[in-house]
């Protein structure tokens, strides 16, 4: 260790044991070590400001308050939210299983009636929908009407038992008549050909090659005639 390095290291850290050991043999260096150590003691003493009384207690108190404020009152059922959520979802799953297993699937006729009741206000419409508009929608299924059995007042895509279908309403001599055109590829009521009715409406289901047509009209309407007419007008492309 040369003189310069000794000085640099001593000034950087007067308690560096290597430097102190190095100075033992050299009185001049020894004196500089003592000087720097005294100097450091002075620095330390000058920097030794009084610590506020009770600081440690206040720090611990603050931690205690912080901990206390984190203990929020939680409703008993929220404390167990994970197990409860699991249990709830299992109950729901079991419930759905029993509903699907015990309830026989809604029949297509009932479904059609329900659908009509659900959109019963649509029967009151009088605004005509052009044949072209109806055919644009039907084109989605690859079909078109050559003519319509009456003035169409409603034409929209609907979900019929999970199947995208065309929901039409046209005005007949017997009042508004609803027609569902349900593409045949995946519906699950193939066996249900025929009639259905309730106290207000009567209907008929006709299975076709490409689609089923379900007609719902006021009770007493000759639905078969209309059904035949509609199926005659419906042309698959």
């Amino acid at each position, binding site marked *: 260790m040369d003189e310069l390095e000794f000085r640099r290291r001593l000034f950087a850290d007067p308690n560096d044991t290597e430097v102190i050991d190095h100075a033992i043999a050299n009185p001049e260096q020894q004196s500089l070590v003592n000087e720097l150590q005294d100097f450091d003691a002075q620095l330390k003493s000058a*920097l030794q400001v009084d610590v506020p009384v009770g600081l440690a207690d206040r720090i611990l108190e603050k931690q205690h308050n912080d901990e206390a404020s984190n203990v929020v009152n939680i409703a008993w059922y929220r404390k167990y939210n994970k197990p409860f959520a699991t249990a709830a979802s299992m109950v729901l799953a079991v419930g759905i299983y029993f509903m699907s297993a015990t309830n026989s699937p809604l029949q297509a006729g009932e479904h059609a009636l329900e659908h009509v009741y659900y959109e019963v206000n649509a029967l009151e419409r009088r605004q005509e929908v052009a044949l072209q508009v109806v055919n644009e929608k039907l084109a989605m299924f690859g079909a078109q009407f050559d003519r319509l059995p009456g003035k169409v007042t409603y034409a929209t895509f609907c979900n019929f038992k999970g199947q995208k279908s065309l929901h039409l309403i046209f005005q007949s001599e017997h009042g508004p008549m609803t027609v569902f055109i349900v593409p045949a590829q995946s519906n699950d009521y193939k066996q249900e050909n025929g009639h259905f009715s309730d106290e207000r409406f009567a209907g008929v289901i006709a299975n076709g090659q490409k689609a089923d047509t379900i007609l719902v009209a006021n009770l007493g309407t000759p639905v078969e005639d209309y059904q035949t007419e509609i199926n005659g007008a419906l042309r698959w492309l």
Partner: protein
Amino acid sequence: MTMKKKRYEALVQVYHSELYRFAYWLCHDPTIAEDLVQETFLRAWRSLESLQDDKAAKPWLLTILRRENARRFERKQFDYADVENDTLEDNKSVTLDDEMEQTVIQRQINKLSSEYREPLLLQVVMGCSGEEIADILELNKNTVMTRLYRARNQLKEALTDNHEPIKGASN
């Protein structure tokens, strides 16, 4: 009491005085210094799990404290134009000569640029090693040692040139 609490209490007892002094010389205000130390320990409590080894507690706490201090400046830029006059600390139970001498030393330390002052405070007040200072200030150790050397060199020169009453400066 939990293990965590015991460990925490030990940290507070061992380090709160040194940390307060270091904080005081960072901000030159007893109230802000206490706030800094309080906040530092609160954060330390909340993340005590991240302190693996209690031997590393001091640099860990200092890193938190410095970060807290930096946050203070992000929130509000305090005006310390009068810093030299603000920091004349009255230390009781010392003679008038000693008091004057300490005041002079404090003033000279405050005159150091912060890059020299901070490593010196960490070494003298906190008793940190060169490695620890390098770690806390995110510098390499050689840089830290050079700054410490210059800090003492400047202080010694300033205190000697002014013929200020420095006990044992040239004996």
